[in-house]
């Protein structure tokens, strides 16, 4: 059977098409030759098709257990159920890289399809830049990480099995979501580079970038949340965020991406902060690449690290260097330095969004420093300090609280200028209400801790301010329902985004301050107490799974003498590869989780047991999903779906009656057409 070679061949063809894509439309756009620019969309489609063919072939090899393919033999096993065979496609380095490329090609195709109303020059340049990124990654996979390499002639009779940690539903969808986010930022990046090349950093550019950025960011949010959720139930010790280098690598583009979506809003609506926004777009994508580099190169190892390989690390670093250095040089030469004559007062929404950016960028820097510091010290031979969770908890928490408090104020602020006295009066009632609610929450949890109070207050404050603003805005003479209906989807997107964030802050605060963890030694029949709950050790035994044997325990959980749950944690021994996995059992609830994990057998009838009470932990992930939902909702707003095609850069009226800003009339001098101005 020759088909794996066809897969490799498809990758090489995709590479050739990507090379053409990165050159031909760009040359066409610079020389003004439409015949060359016309190649942009067909080349994109061709590239996508060949990448998809390669991905399909690899998937097929997994489905039919073709162990002549080395990657399949290393990551799959004939005993695996089909859905794990499918997810095993991205269970190792080569396959996840192929998935990454498939998504990159997919995003590029999406730009080609959904860019009908963009000027041809812009489309050509954006697709060329994306083509260039594709070239980099296709070269990487073809030269260093061929997933179709064969083991011939001694084909193994069975595979080595997928890492048991990865045999899990969360892991089927976590990497694709994460990659959708990472890769999605390449579109924002391409728009930024195209805008720098033709010198059109304007409100229109910001408007085109916004939906792409928001979608990528929403996917990344979901991806990170899924990763955290997976770590919580699968790694077996009940934590939800470990400040592990790879987790940090995904948090970095998320933080700068969050800054970016806010700064894009200012650039679109007010035409200011252009240089800053375009820099953020470049940095966000660079951080996505840095994340890939850190995971794939093995410069920093962690639970996530795949087999590290200096050659791959060097290649990725070169790719990172070319992309980042190239775009930053372009930025330094082309970014506008002209001071835009737009006035805004010291309490304006512009200022609050600027402060939001300062906070988010500080947080990004903080996480970057914490992640890279050991590496930096090591290369300078300077010393011996390792950074761990305490550093992040100590420094990140105050920043998050400050950002949240500012956000609550910012929600009430207006563009251009906000009267300080008016703002203060406006804040009075929400403030009083928030203090009241958070005090009640503290009383409910029974113990006053200053950090807990600050965290809960921040969460409540954000939620109250968001709802208060919605109430104000939906005030209408035609009634409340009419007022609520009149708000745009992008406004509701923002509301959901902020409410989700409030839930995340609340969850993180409560579970860190009021969660209880106990490690106990228990014999059959023993009772242990954690908070208000009693755990009775009722059963212990052995059972046989599909590809593992497990020791399991049985626990009854009692609250006030009433049984609320029955839990069966396991300790699994996988037959292939001899690895041991702790499968915690969790009674999940909206207000609290009960968590039991079984540890070592200490003596003949005693076991080490980990018992945990985790209040509000679900809010972390629920909040993240609501936040992401807000992102998707905002993108579906009708102002992003303008049917007319703007071939010439002239001001046009869209179907909602607002002006589509054009480069000739940057919002600097014209009255700004914002959704606020319309409504």
């Amino acid at each position, binding site marked *: 059977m020759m088909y794996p070679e066809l897969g490799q061949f498809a990758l090489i063809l995709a590479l050739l098409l990507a090379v053409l894509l990165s050159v031909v439309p760009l040359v066409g756009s610079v020389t003004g030759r439409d015949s060359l620019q016309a190649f942009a969309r067909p080349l994109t489609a061709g590239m996508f098709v060949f990448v998809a063919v390669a991905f399909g072939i690899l998937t097929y090899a997994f489905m039919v257990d073709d162990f002549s393919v080395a990657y399949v033999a290393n990551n799959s096993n004939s005993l695996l159920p089909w859905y794990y065979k499918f997810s095993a496609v991205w269970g190792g380095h080569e396959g996840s890289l192929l998935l990454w490329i498939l998504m990159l090609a997919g995003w590029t195709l999406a730009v080609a399809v959904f860019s009908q109303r963009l000027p041809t020059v812009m489309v050509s340049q954006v697709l060329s830049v994306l083509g260039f990124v594709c070239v980099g990654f296709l070269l990487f996979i073809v030269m260093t990480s061929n997933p179709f390499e064969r083991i011939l002639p001694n084909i193994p009779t069975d595979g080595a099995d997928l890492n048991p940690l990865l045999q899990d539903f969360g892991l089927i969808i976590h990497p694709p979501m994460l990659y959708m986010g990472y890769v999605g930022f390449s579109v924002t990046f391409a728009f930024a580079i195209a805008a720098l090349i033709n010198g059109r950093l304007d409100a229109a550019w910001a408007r085109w970038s916004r939906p792409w950025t928001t979608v990528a960011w929403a996917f990344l949010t979901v991806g990170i949340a899924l990763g955290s959720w997976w770590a919580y139930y699968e*790694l*077996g*010790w009940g934590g939800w965020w470990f400040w592990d280098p790879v987790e940090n690598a995904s948090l970095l583009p998320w933080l700068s991406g969050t800054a970016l979506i806010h700064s894009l809003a200012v650039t679109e609506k007010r035409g200011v902060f252009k*240089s800053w926004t375009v*820099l953020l777009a*470049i*940095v966000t994508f*660079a951080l996505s690449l840095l994340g890939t*580099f850190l995971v794939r*190169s*093995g*410069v*920093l*190892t*962690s*639970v996530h*690290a795949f087999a*590290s390989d*200096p050659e791959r*690390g*060097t290649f990725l*670093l070169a790719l*990172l*260097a070319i992309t*980042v*250095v190239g775009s*930053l*040089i372009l*930025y*330094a030469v082309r*970014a506008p*330095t002209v001071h835009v004559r737009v006035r805004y007062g010291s309490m304006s929404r512009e200022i609050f969004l600027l402060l939001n950016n300062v906070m988010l960028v500080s947080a990004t820097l903080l996480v970057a420093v914490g992640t*890279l510091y*050991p*590496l*930096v010290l*090591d*290369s300078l031979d300077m010393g*011996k*300090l*390792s950074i*761990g969770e305490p550093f992040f908890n100590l420094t990140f928490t105050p920043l998050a609280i400050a950002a949240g408090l500012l956000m609550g104020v910012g929600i009430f602020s207006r563009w251009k200028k906000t009267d300080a006295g008016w703002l203060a009066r406006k804040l009075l009632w929400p403030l009083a209400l928030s203090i009241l609610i958070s005090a009640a929450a503290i009383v409910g949890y029974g113990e006053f801790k200053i950090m807990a109070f600050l965290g809960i207050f921040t969460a409540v404050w954000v939620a109250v301010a968001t709802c208060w603003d919605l109430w104000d805005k939906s005030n209408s003479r035609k009634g409340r329902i009419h007022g609520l209906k009149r708000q745009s989807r992008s406004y509701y997107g923002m509301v959901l985004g902020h409410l989700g964030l409030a839930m995340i802050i609340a969850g993180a605060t409560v579970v860190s301050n009021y969660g209880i963890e106990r*490690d106990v*030694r228990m014999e059959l029949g023993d009772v242990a107490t954690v908070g208000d709950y009693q755990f009775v050790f009722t059963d212990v035994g052995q059972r046989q799974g599909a590809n593992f044997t497990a020791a399991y325990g049985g626990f009854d959980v009692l609250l006030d003498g009433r049984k609320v749950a029955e839990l069966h944690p396991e300790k699994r021994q996988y037959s292939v590869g*001899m690895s*041991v996995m*702790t499968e915690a059992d969790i009674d999940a609830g909206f207000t609290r989780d009960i968590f039991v994990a079984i*540890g*070592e*057998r*200490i003596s003949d009838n005693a076991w*080490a047991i980990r018992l945990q009470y985790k209040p509000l932990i679900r809010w972390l992930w629920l909040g993240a999903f609501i936040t992401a939902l807000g992102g998707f909702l905002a993108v579906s707003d009708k102002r992003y779906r303008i049917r007319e095609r703007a071939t010439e850069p002239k001001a046009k009226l869209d179907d909602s009656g607002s002006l589509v800003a054009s480069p000739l009339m940057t919002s600097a001098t014209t009255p700004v057409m914002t959704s606020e101005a319309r409504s």
Partner: protein
Amino acid sequence: MKRVLLFLPLLVALVLGVLLFSGIGKDPTKLDSALVGKAVPEFALEDLHRPEVQLSRQVFQGEPRLLNVWGTWCPSCRDEHADLMWLAEDEGVPIVGLNYKDQRAKAKAWLERLGDPYSTNVYDPKGSLGFDLGVYGAPETFVIGADGTVLHRHVGVVNKQVWEETLRPLLNQAGGRY
């Protein structure tokens, strides 16, 4: 003047790039080869059980031993613990513990509850010796010769298989009898 400021991000990126590049050579998983054959780095740290006692690399003199990096925050260490107990009690292997980035009270409670397989325990709350050893996470286990040289680094959990296939032959080569 403002144009010059725009070059600042480029400068930062370049510096970072150089650092990352130097990081590639120092691959932490390859560190075993870098440290093997060299002496355990100098250190002066307290004994876990007796804060008044300062330990140095002298603890490795005399006979070949294992150096096990552990912490109560590390779930895999919990998995590994029973095997370490077995190694210490049934096989009589001297194991020096390196209590890594942990709290003394928690560590002592853990050993009281689960048993103490260690002949000596070095208390390293800041992770300084761990850093010198190139420890990235726990558990990690080093084979140390009778003269205090690092012979091998094992990343991950020690179990019977690892003991039989790797650690035991190495200890016996170094003059141990297990």
